[in-house]
């Protein structure tokens, strides 16, 4: 092994990559900078839509209002729904969008209520319409209030204490800090995205430095220099790793920017706003964990790219690698991090995803981290040896 040769190859590959600015920006840096914004932005978009629907007043048509003027007035007074006229039958009225919802008061409703029997109400709504389902929820709240009002009146007539029907009084206190809740939200969203972007970040460089040598017909001249195959592979590997780490760094910085800045505030549901946070310490640990993943994937993408005879073919070969990363990171969705056994941290990719979750939830377990590092380091060595082996195979290097 010659450190001088390794450094020479590394320096050349970095120079070559840096000069390929268009590819570097278009396929690596821009997606890495914008992807977190897009991913974090989608829940915000949903939350925004939900807030708008909550704030708007949906329309309601009421059939047979004369049967219970009291209920009719109660609904109108609630101010959350606007009364409109029925157009045709109740089903058509809802389906055609003439009203978000239709409430049909039964002919015997008033009499049933006066005899203290259940009064029948029928609600027509469209489960496929966000507006209609929101109106349905609002009407349920109003009817619930009306229900309690009737009960209270009946109990008062009988001089019964209202607390008789309220044996439990619940007080729920959330002991989690806002950072911890933020960590939970981020732990659900971030690990697969981070793993994916790290996986794709160095792939272009890996392909360019391996199968690219074949396509440019530079490989043969390179193989007859004094540098050993291992030196060539090691230099290229370090260059791919450097590009992947740069991608990872930009990704972390980008996440920090979007979370601490434009997208962090007002995250969460309409009634439970949450400010996301991403501390420097968390960023640092996640960068370290992702660096492990980068090491492993750099070797793997180099090895599989070398097997190909063209860029196009290399694209086909690296697709399963991306699929593996996706499968590994999404598998973490089915695992509760509190119950994750040590064995799970022996599974590549999944272990990285789980470690990121632990970091975000501030529950990092050092035996988990140790096993993850050991497994990833071992796999990285295997992929590097595989890449070197591939680089020595005449049949692979000179496929036509």
């Amino acid at each position, binding site marked *: 092994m010659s450190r001088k040769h390794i450094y020479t190859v590394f320096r050349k590959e970095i*120079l070559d990559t840096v000069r390929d600015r268009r590819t570097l920006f278009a396929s690596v840096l821009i997606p890495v900078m914008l992807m977190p914004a897009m991913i974090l932005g989608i829940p915000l978009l949903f939350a925004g839509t939900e807030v708008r629907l909550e704030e708007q007043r949906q329309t309601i048509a009421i059939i047979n209002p004369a049967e219970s003027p009291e209920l009719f007035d109660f609904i109108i007074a609630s101010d959350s729904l606007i009364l409109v006229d029925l157009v045709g039958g109740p089903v058509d009225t809802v389906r055609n969008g003439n009203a978000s919802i239709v409430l049909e008061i039964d002919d015997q409703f008033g009499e049933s209520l006066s005899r203290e029997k259940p009064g029948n109400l029928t609600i027509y709504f469209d489960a496929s319409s966000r507006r209609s389902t929101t109106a349905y929820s609002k009407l349920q709240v109003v009817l619930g209030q009306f229900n309690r009002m009737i009960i209270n009146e009946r109990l008062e007539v009988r001089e019964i204490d209202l607390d008789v029907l309220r044996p439990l009084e619940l007080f729920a206190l959330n002991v989690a800090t806002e950072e911890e809740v933020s960590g939970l939200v981020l732990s659900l969203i971030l690990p697969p995205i981070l793993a994916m972007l790290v996986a794709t970040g160095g792939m272009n460089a890996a392909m360019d430095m391996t199968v690219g040598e074949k396509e*440019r017909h*530079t490989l043969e*001249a390179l193989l*007859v*220099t*004094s540098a*050993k195959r291992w030196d060539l592979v090691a230099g290229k590997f370090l260059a791919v790793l450097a590009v992947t780490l740069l991608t990872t760094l930009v990704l972390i910085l980008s996440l920090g920017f979007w979370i601490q800045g434009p997208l962090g505030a007002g995250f969460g549901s309409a009634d439970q706003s949450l400010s996301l946070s991403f501390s420097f310490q968390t960023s640092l640990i996640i960068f370290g964990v992702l660096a492990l993943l980068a090491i492993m994937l750099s070797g793997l993408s180099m090895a599989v790219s070398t097997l190909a005879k063209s860029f196009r073919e290399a694209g086909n070969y690296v697709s399963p690698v991306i699929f593996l990363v996706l499968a590994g990171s999404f598998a973490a969705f089915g695992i509760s991090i509190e119950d994750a056994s040590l064995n799970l941290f022996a599974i590549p990719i999944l272990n990285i995803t789980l470690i990121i979750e632990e970091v975000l939830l501030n529950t990092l377990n050092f035996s988990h981290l140790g096993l993850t590092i050991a497994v990833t380091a071992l796999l990285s060595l295997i992929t590097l040896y595989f890449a070197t082996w591939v680089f020595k195979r005449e049949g692979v290097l000179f496929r036509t």
Partner: protein
Amino acid sequence: MANKGIHVIEAKSITKKFKKFVAVDSISFEPRKGEIFGLLGLNGAGKTTTQRIISTVFRPTSGEALVNGFSITNEASKVRKSIGFVPTEVGLYDRLTGREVVRYFGRLNDMEGRDLEERIDTVIGILSLGEYADRKCGQLSRGNKQKVAIARAIVHDPPVFLFDEPTSGLDVLAARGVIDFMKKSRDDGKTMLYSTHVMSEAEEVCDKIGVIHDGRLLYTGGLKEFIEGKRGLEQAFTDALRMGAK
């Protein structure tokens, strides 16, 4: 042990098989120091495979060759230090300048510092690359790219040049430049294994030739002997192929 014999390349019964296909079938040849040995053959005759074996890119299935006294099978790294290989395809790094490409290969051949920079200037001068050396390879003409490929191959001043169809795809002037360079290198004592199917060029520069067809050597020896009584190398070559085919 370098340069111990007169024969700078000694190929002894080299055979290369790719599964059942025999690309090179027990060929032997021995160019001496300061000779240009032409490996003449049609496309697919086995010239490139032979060059790749001698340059240690391929391992022979059987047989052996010594280059500058070093075994291609057991002392591959010493062989690589002794050769400057110009493959058929001129592959360069488009985003690097010619000088950077030559420097890269110089470093990979264990040169560095002032020695390397001086040698780069010398090689650039020899190949008349001066004004193009600092342009990116992607912007160079085919002829200048070939010059960079040659500069890259000889930057470490090896005693043996392996040139695989070095004038392929070049215009007349560029090809003339390469041929003149080969002649000058011979005068400087370099030994060359030169593959081509351009008979006029071979006739001009070769001292010895090997006619290869379907992986077998039909003739090995002096050029003059080969063309004696013929109208030239092209006729002698064609006749040899006809005889070989019979």
